[in-house]
Structure formats: structure tokens, C-alpha cells
């Protein structure tokens, strides 16, 4: 069982699978999958991959095409060539510019907005001695 966690299964670009794919380890898909993917480890969806089905993984990196929902225990990463048509749910999310994404997203890593930085000396608008300072208006 420990060996399975380190082994990565691979579906190359010329392979087409119809049905559900299940694995406890990691998997890389570059081919076509018409069905669901249940992966206990991390999944990598290559640029040439085309998946029509849902994905349940620990973490996934998508560069190809997916028509279906994604549920990840940890992280979803969408590369710039990714095309995702479906809903996504994960703890963490990273999306590169260029992604095509239509669907709903449920990702909230912290559950709270980022804290404001500690107050510092104010920037350009305030303070004296700056040559290009316009003015401080008080009435």
C-alpha cells in the first residue's frame, strides 16, 4: 500500500478510456476519459487531456479540458491552458491567467478576509518636505 502512494499511473495521450478510473496513488492523464476519476493521491491533467466526468482527488493540477465537477481535499491548480466547465470545491485554489472556467467555485482557505497591514508612515499624499506634494485640505 505504501508503494502505491509513490507510484504514478499514467494514461498517455493516445489512450481513450470509457468508465470510472480509481486509484489510491497519483495519476497523470494525457488522454481521453469518459467517466469519473477517483484518486486518493494527486492527479495531473495534461494539456492534451480531455475528461468528461467528475474528479475526486486529494490535489489536482489541470492544463487540459474538463467537463465535470472537481472535489479536491487539498488543492486545485488551473494552468493557463485549462478549460473547466463545471463546479469546483477545494481548500486551496490557484488559477493562472488565461484559464477558461465556467461554473461555481467553493474555495475559502482561511474563512476570514486578510488582515490589514500594521500602520506605517503614510505615503505620498501626506507629510511635508516632498517636492511634488499637492496639498492637504482641511476645513
Amino acid at each position: 500500500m505504501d508503494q502505491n502512494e509513490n507510484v504514478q499511473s499514467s494514461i498517455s495521450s493516445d489512450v481513450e478510456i470509457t468508465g470510472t478510473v480509481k486509484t489510491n496513488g497519483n495519476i497523470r492523464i494525457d488522454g481521453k476519459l469518459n467517466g469519473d476519476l477517483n484518486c486518493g493521491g494527486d492527479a495531473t491533467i495534461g494539456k492534451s487531456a480531455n475528461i468528461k466526468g467528475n474528479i475526486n482527488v486529494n490535489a489536482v493540477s489541470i492544463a487540459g479540458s474538463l467537463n465535470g465537477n472537481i472535489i479536491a481535499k487539498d488543492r486545485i491548480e488551473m494552468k493557463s491552458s485549462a478549460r473547466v466547465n463545471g463546479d469546483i470545491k477545494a481548500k486551496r485554489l490557484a488559477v493562472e491567467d488565461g484559464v477558461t472556467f465556467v461554473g461555481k467555485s467553493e474555495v475559502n482557505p482561511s474563512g476570514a478576509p486578510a488582515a490589514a497591514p500594521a500602520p506605517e508612515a503614510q505615503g505620498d499624499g501626506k507629510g511635508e518636505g516632498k517636492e511634488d506634494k499637492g496639498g492637504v485640505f482641511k476645513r
Partner: protein
Amino acid sequence: MVEHRKAKLVSGYAAMKAARRAAHDTDEIRPEFDEAKGSGQVKPGSHIGTTVLPTKHEIVCYECDYIFHITGRQKDTVCPKCRARLEILDHTIEGDWSGDLRTGGTIHVTTDAVLKSGEIKGSNVILQGKIDGGRIRAFQWLELHDTAVFEEKDFEAKDLRIPAGADITLKRKAMFRRVDVVGRLKAKVHASGLVSVRTGGLLEGEVHGPHLMVEDGGGLKVKAGILPLEAEE
């Protein structure tokens, strides 16, 4: 008698050296550089500096809305289209304010400021205070802080920024060119450019546009329609 001009003394060896230098420019003429060549050192006289160009700034004329660029930091400039003299200074507003203010720089409306009437026009506007009768127009970025009190009809901006710590809800459809979220924004965002959610930020509601970027650690609880222009074609 013929006057003889003084002639410079030129040795034959020097003449040969000069001719060879002009024709070949070989290392024989400069033996002292042989060592430098092999050791990776820079040859004396080589240009090793870097050229730094001043930053270009986009300026929107507050008279005719013409967009142009200037290089470097200036206090004022002239619009190339309408020839209006444009001030490019940063301003800070504290306390109550009534009247118009126009600049190509940044306007900072502080927490205790209240805009009672008039129009504030700036390249960038940082809103921490209250809009109570006045109006804000940002030609580029509008930054909404948590202490800002406003109605959405009171401002107009090209780009929107939500800084860290801010928790902003917009009820109307929010149409901007770019949106940058570091804090929390709940809105129906329609962008023509890039929507970015930084680490620690959270975007809720809807987002539609051609570009979306979420940094690792950014939150996204939206109904999304991100279609790059190439995909639409």
C-alpha cells in the same frame, strides 16, 4: 626662398603600428588585454553599466478624457489633444470638503473626511472617508477601504482595488476594467480585463470576464464565467 613648414617627426615603426591597428585591430597591438580575455575580466573601456529608463505614467486629461503617457515624475503637463494645463499632484482631504478638485495624481480621502458636495477627479482615489453628497471619479484605480462610507452611484472608476482588511459589499453590478482583491469583496463583478484575487483575499458573488488570476491562498466563492477572448472566437 621657400619657407618650409615644420614637419612632425613620425617614425616608421609608429606608422606601421597605426596602419596595422586600423586594418586588423588585433591583439598584437594591445598585448595587455590577452590576460583579461582569458580570465573573464572585463576589458577596460567596455560598457558595463545598465540603462535605466524613467517610468511611464498613463495620464487621463480631466478636461477632455484623452489618454496619453508621460515619462518620469512631473508636477504638471499639457494635454496633447485639448492643450489644457493639467496638474499632476497628489492631494489629501481631511475633514469636511465641498467643491471640485481635479488632478492627474492621487487623491487620498482620509477616514475623517466627508465629501459634502462637488466632484473629486483624480487618476487614483483612495477612499477611507465618507461620501455625503459629493462624487468621486477615478480615471484609473479606486481603492475602497473598510472605513469608506458611500453609495455606489457616488463613484465612477476604471479599476477597483480592495486592500487587505477591507470588507466591501457592492449591491449593483460592478463593471470595471480590472479588479484587484486583497481583502474581501462581495459583488457581481463584470470586468473587461483581469480579475485578480491575492493571497488572503476572498471574492464572493459572481465574476465574469476574460481573465481571472487567483494566487495560492486566495478564496473564490463565485459563480464564474471566465472566457478569454480567443475562446469566444
